[in-house]
């Protein structure tokens, strides 16, 4: 494992409630990412971070926000959960690659299965 933990691993919540998912890394990597995985869609980028307090939107960012106050933690918040946000959420990390073979390699956490009822 690449030193990535996600919490919670499973969560069931009701429509309209806020939900926060946590990604924690022990690798001191600069870049962190949140993806969602849905059948027939592969993995899609929600938000990413390129440093503490530096974040930007990905492909499917509507309804999500993120925060990164420490290098090791990247939080994903569903401001008002909807059934369409039922998914498996993966966090990934990558280091600032400057050497061949290291550039761009992303390592994924174990995922959080979120069900919105």
């Amino acid at each position, binding site marked *: 494992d690449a030193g*990535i933990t996600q919490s919670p691993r499973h969560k069931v919540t009701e429509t309209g409630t806020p939900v926060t998912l946590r990604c924690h890394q022990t690798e001191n990597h600069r*870049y962190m*990412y949140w993806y969602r995985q849905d059948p*027939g*869609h*592969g*993995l*899609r*980028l929600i938000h*990413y971070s*390129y440093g503490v307090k*530096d974040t*930007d939107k*990905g492909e499917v960012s509507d309804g999500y926000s993120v925060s990164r106050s420490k290098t090791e933690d990247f939080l994903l918040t569903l401001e008002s959960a909807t059934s369409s946000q039922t998914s498996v959420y*993966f966090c*990934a990390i*990558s280091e600032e*690659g400057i050497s*061949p073979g290291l*550039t*761009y*390699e*992303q*390592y*994924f*956490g*174990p*995922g959080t299965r979120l069900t919105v009822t």
Partner: protein
Amino acid sequence: QQQVKQSPQSLIVQKGGISIINCAYENTAFDYFPWYQQFPGKGPALLIAIRPDVSEKKEGRFTISFNKSAKQFSLHIMDSQPGDSATYFCAASYEYSNSGYALNFGKGTSLLVTP
């Protein structure tokens, strides 16, 4: 819109056979092409990756073939084993400004290797 198209969606191969999964892309700015392997209930794991300055990369039983002019790349699994049964994702990435190297994934191929 899917920037990386992957086929087939599912694949059944006999033990000892060759599994081949194909991907195609349009964005010529992509310059890093990894393959990920995912088992049920687990996160994707980096399997092998290639940069466009080479046409082939081999690691054990896994080989990436890359055709830059056709904008296609493929994963070959030689001597496929039942333990290779998993979902495989191709992806493509490029560096943009200061903000990282987010991956664009294909939709995945479910591989079943039968005994």
